[in-house]
């Protein structure tokens, strides 16, 4: 057992760190920290820089454009990204549909879609959830009927993140209504410009337009856009869910979040006028949170090393998801506590393009919306209750 990096690993870390320092766009600095909403071009700019360096898809096999890194290198890379507070590369192409395509797709599908995922030329969204389905994913009702060389798709999807920008979406649809819930499902790639596709915004508690409803009305989808066999889409879905959950602990981001929290608590004053971070009770909350994060970090490291209960990305990633989201939410709770009364003003309501400054300190104006918004993390990707059910069943045998 040894926690130290090898000299090669240290050199790699330095290389990554230097690249970020030299190449991360100046106009994006700080936006992530403050919980600002990002525009489409903001999100794509860093993606394209990483793409040109060959680093945009750390986990992809080299034959499809991955950098061929070890698990430790990937760990270092994600630590460094978080350390520098870069905006995240969107997961829908790189982490979600990409691996499904290179794992289950035909050579033609790979050739057609993978390069444009890497380059960022195609923006992807995920059509999984349906109104009323929630964590019960397999209960989906969107229908796809085969008509010649097309499917005709009808139904409604919801919680579709950033679909307002999307060129393509990957959808779970029911192709055999008579089969059991998890059977009779197929995995389709749908051109979002197809006639019959309508995207409608859902405004969340903080006022953000991040998620959408997607309505599908007699949408024609060529059969060649189906991944894997008809009625076997659940295989792709399960693969993707397991894949999605790796990195969900968010350790590096939460480290950064705690540093930011400490900075805020140094600037804010308590009731006696001393910095809030010197207030014993506030400080204690931070100290406890740091303990929780260290425990999560080492549990993730043990999981990566295959050392924790179970092997490979599977049920133990549920633990990382539960604890990771609890910590992420706790950070936003403490930021909101820290900013006190200036958590109340709602800056978002100002007209766009207004050059008015926020009310109160700059670190305060996104505190409440971010806190509200982060409640989603214990709901999406399988609610934390579902994660506990999974652990009970898969790890404890209950």
């Amino acid at each position, binding site marked *: 057992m040894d926690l130290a990096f090898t000299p090669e690993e240290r050199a790699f870390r330095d290389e990554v760190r230097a690249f970020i320092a030299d190449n991360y766009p100046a106009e994006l600095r700080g936006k992530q920290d403050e919980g600002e909403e990002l525009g489409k071009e903001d999100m794509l700019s860093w993606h394209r820089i990483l793409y040109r360096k060959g680093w945009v898809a750390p986990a992809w096999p080299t034959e499809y454009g991955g950098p061929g890194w070890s698990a430790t290198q990937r760990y270092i890379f994600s630590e460094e990204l978080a350390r520098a507070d870069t905006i995240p590369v969107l997961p829908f192409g790189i982490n979600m549909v990409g691996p499904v395509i290179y794992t289950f797709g035909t050579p033609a599908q790979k050739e057609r879609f993978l390069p444009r995922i890497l380059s960022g030329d195609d923006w992807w969204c995920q059509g999984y959830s349906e109104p009323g389905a929630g964590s019960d994913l397999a209960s989906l009702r969107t229908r796809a009927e085969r008509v010649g060389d097309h499917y005709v798709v009808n139904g409604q999807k919801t919680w579709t993140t950033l679909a307002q920008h999307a060129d393509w979406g990957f959808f779970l649809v029911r192709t055999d209504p008579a089969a059991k819930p998890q059977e009779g499902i197929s995995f389709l790639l749908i051109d979002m410009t197809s006639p019959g596709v309508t995207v409608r915004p859902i405004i969340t*508690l903080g006022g953000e337009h991040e998620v959408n409803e997607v309505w599908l009305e007699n949408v024609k989808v060529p059969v060649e856009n189906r991944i894997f066999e008809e009625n076997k889409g659940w295989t792709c879905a399960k693969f993707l869910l397991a894949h999605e959950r790796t990195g969900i602990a968010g350790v590096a981001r939460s480290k950064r979040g705690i540093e930011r929290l400490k900075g805020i608590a140094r600037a804010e004053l308590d009731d006696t006028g001393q910095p809030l971070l010197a207030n014993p009770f506030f400080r204690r909350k931070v100290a406890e949170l740091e303990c929780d994060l260290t425990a999560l970090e080492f549990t993730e490291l043990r999981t990566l090393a295959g050392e924790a209960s179970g092997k490979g990305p599977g049920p133990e990633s549920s633990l990382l998801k539960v604890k990771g989201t609890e910590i992420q939410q706790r950070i936003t709770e403490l930021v909101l506590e820290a900013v*006190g009364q200036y958590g*109340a003003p709602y800056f978002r309501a100002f007209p766009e393009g207004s050059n008015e400054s926020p009310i109160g300190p700059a670190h305060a104006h996104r505190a409440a919306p971010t806190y509200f918004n982060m409640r989603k993390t214990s*709901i999406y990707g399988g609610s934390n209750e579902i994660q506990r059910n999974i652990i009970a069943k898969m790890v404890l045998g209950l």
Partner: protein
Amino acid sequence: MDFSFTETQGMLRDSLARYLRERYDFDSRQKMLAMPGGRDPAIWKAFAEELGILGAGFPEEHGGLGGGHVDHMVIMEELGRAIAIEPYLDTCIVGGGALLAAGGDHAATLIPGIIAGDVIIAFAWAEPKSRYNPARIETRATADGAGWTLSGHKSVVIAAPYATHVLVTARTGGASGERDGVSLFLVEAGTAGITRRDYPTVDGWMASELFFERANVGPHALLGAEGQAMGLVDELLDRATAATCAEAAGTMRRLHELTLDYAKQRQQFGQPISKFQVIQHRLVDMLMEAEQAVSMAYQATLRLDLRAAERARAVSQAKAKIAKGARFLGQSAIQIHGGIGITNELAAGHYFKRLTMLESRYGDQDHHLARLEAMMMAEAA
């Protein structure tokens, strides 16, 4: 000991509850938020004229109904149930309380206006560096030949955009943090030298930053003795806190009901999610927090007229407990609602936002626990 409400209080609750059910449902409230100015002023007028509740806490000689803290509690609980954005606390409880304490011309002139719905008072006690300590203020008031001149910055003054008057704390002596030297002023909103920056809050209210730039507020603006206002300010804040507890209790009860209803109809894995034992127990734990919040609101309210230390202890115990319970209940409500709870489309999310703000209004859990601990140590000494 007696825990029953008077007939008047019962009627007060019933008529207000009925009005709010009919005129202040979720959709109506959403429409109010979208109006110019962020509210519907007709509601406040209806409180005065249709319901006649604005005088609930004023003595009969001022034209009021002669009620007291319990009447305020009843009203606040109902307003909390509806997450109403009406300035009853600010105007009737705090503003009215200050006027009654000051007495004289001020009271005689303004209280009938409050009861009629014409006078709205905002309470400007906080400043950018005060956090929840009302004595940590830097706004200055100086006496000159023409009365008092105020300079300073008051933050997050709820209801200030549409208030006719503002109750302002300012230093006539002493340094930030000292209790001596704080004075209380009642000023007219339109006074020259007062500028506002208005904004909505995350929970749908309207508030302002108030900037006093050598604002001359006249000779009669001072309420009570110069430099000796902290006793009254503490009392007003304790009353406001108790009222906030009652409001939060109403909000919690209603959010619990909304969540229970949702859990009964929401299907997952072939059954209503209310059939899952972890959801059931969470709903039970939420109920327990809501019921304890109601108990604590009673407790604080019934002790508002005890001596200052006992009053403060009762109020801070209530607020500390409710702040914690409100967070648990609100987060649980969203979790049980799932994705839809995080949108602006359902009432639950708005109740959650309001509860989140009520957690820290007039001091968060840490603030009130610290206040209790200071008393604990004083008793031990």
